[in-house]
Every structure is written in structure tokens, then in C-alpha cells.
């Protein structure tokens, strides 16, 4: 079980959803994440940048069939922070 630790960076609604969608998978493509969240590219880019700056998300660019695909994944630090944040939310709810 993760240690409860409230994280203000993750708590923003869209960033919380990004972490929740990235947590159960190895990685997600940027476009897929946009569709699942229902936000625009620019909004998602902004949130991803904050998470990348905190070393919570890792960006991996791959080229397949002549087009570049951007894959996003949670780093081990990000997974730990997300799990800790969820624990903290549960503690607050009681």
C-alpha cells in the first residue's frame, strides 16, 4: 500500500485524470489521451508539460508508418506520487 501524500500538482482535475488513465497501462498515445479526456491538444500539452517537469510523466516519440506518434507513460516517481495522492484523498474522505 502506498504512503498517503497529498500532491497539489496531481490534484488539478485534468492532471488527476491523466494520471488515472496512465496508471493502469504501460503507455498511452497523446491522441488517445486527448480523446479519452475530451480536451484539446493545447490543453493536454500544458498539463503534460507540468507533469514532465516534475518527472511524473515520460514522453517517448516513435515513428511508425511515416508519422510520428507521441507515447506518454507514468514514471515510477509519478506512479508513487499518484498512488500516494489517491491514498491521501481516501484519508481525507475518511
Amino acid at each position: 500500500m502506498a504512503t498517503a501524500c497529498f500532491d497539489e500538482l496531481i490534484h488539478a482535475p485534468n492532471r488527476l485524470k491523466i494520471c488515472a488513465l496512465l496508471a493502469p497501462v504501460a503507455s498511452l498515445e497523446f491522441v488517445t489521451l486527448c480523446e479519452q479526456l475530451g480536451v484539446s491538444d493545447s490543453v493536454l500539452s500544458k498539463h503534460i508539460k507540468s507533469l514532465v517537469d516534475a518527472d511524473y510523466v515520460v514522453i517517448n516519440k516513435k515513428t511508425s508508418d511515416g508519422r510520428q506518434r507521441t507515447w506518454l507513460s507514468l514514471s515510477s516517481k509519478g506512479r508513487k506520487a499518484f498512488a500516494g495522492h489517491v491514498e491521501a484523498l481516501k484519508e481525507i474522505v475518511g
Partner: protein
Amino acid sequence: MNTTDHPITADDARAALESLAMVNKIAVNSMRPPLWLILLCAVSLGIKTAAMGLMISNDLWISIQWGSYIVCCICIASWIITLHVKGIDIKIVDVNITKTGIISAILICTLLVSSRVTYLQTGSLLFPVIAGIFNTLILAYGLHFGLRWNVKEREKN
């Protein structure tokens, strides 16, 4: 960025957890294989289980056993490739595998082995067939509801 005090109310935290539950539902629905693939995969495992018991000194059952095994592998591989094309890379080895997942896997393996052992000991056709049916049901149920179990068990922990 981390803080130890909690600058939000219990209602805010509850709303955040509710939004997480909704996102988890979206994630589960996007990763779940289609029903026809679940049925094909489960039935081929069931046939493999029955054939494992019945294949002793019988070339037809040996062929059926390997054929169903290949079909099952192709089903799983095609599901993983389809998800990759859709932009989802799943964890092949999930370190957070749940207790239910482990129990299901052990049960499937036990039925596979006991199908063969029981047939060798008793010569009865009944047990391999029953084991095959059970494995079909366990895998179909696991593939359809397994992701939801994982989410629920993680939420509990």
C-alpha cells in the same frame, strides 16, 4: 510540490475520487477485448483443456490441442496489437496483479494438468470435458470482468 497538510475539504476529496472512478471506467471499457474475441479465446482454451486429457496416443486430439493453443495465442496477440494501433500499450506483466487474477490463473493451470492426470488414472472422458467447460467459463469471465476486478481491488487497497 508535495505537501503534508490537506488544503481541500472532504467533499472535494470525495468529488476527486468519484472522478477517478469514472476515469477508471473509461480506461476499463477502452481496454476490454470485444465479446467475440473473448468467446473465441475462452472456447479455444476449453478445447485445449479437454484435448490435453484426451490426446494420449491419439493424433487427432494432439492436433486439436495444438490448434486450439495456437488460436488462443493468436487471439491474445491480436488483442494486444489492436490496442497498440488504437494508442494503448498494456502492461504484459502487471506487477500489481490482483489476488483474484492469481487464483484464476492457478485454477486454469490446475484444471489443465488434472484433465490429463485424471484421464490417465481413470480413463474417463467426463473429467477432461468438464475441466474444459470450467476453463472456458473462468477465462471468459476473467477477460470480461478482470480489468474491473483489478480496479476494484486497487481501490480497496
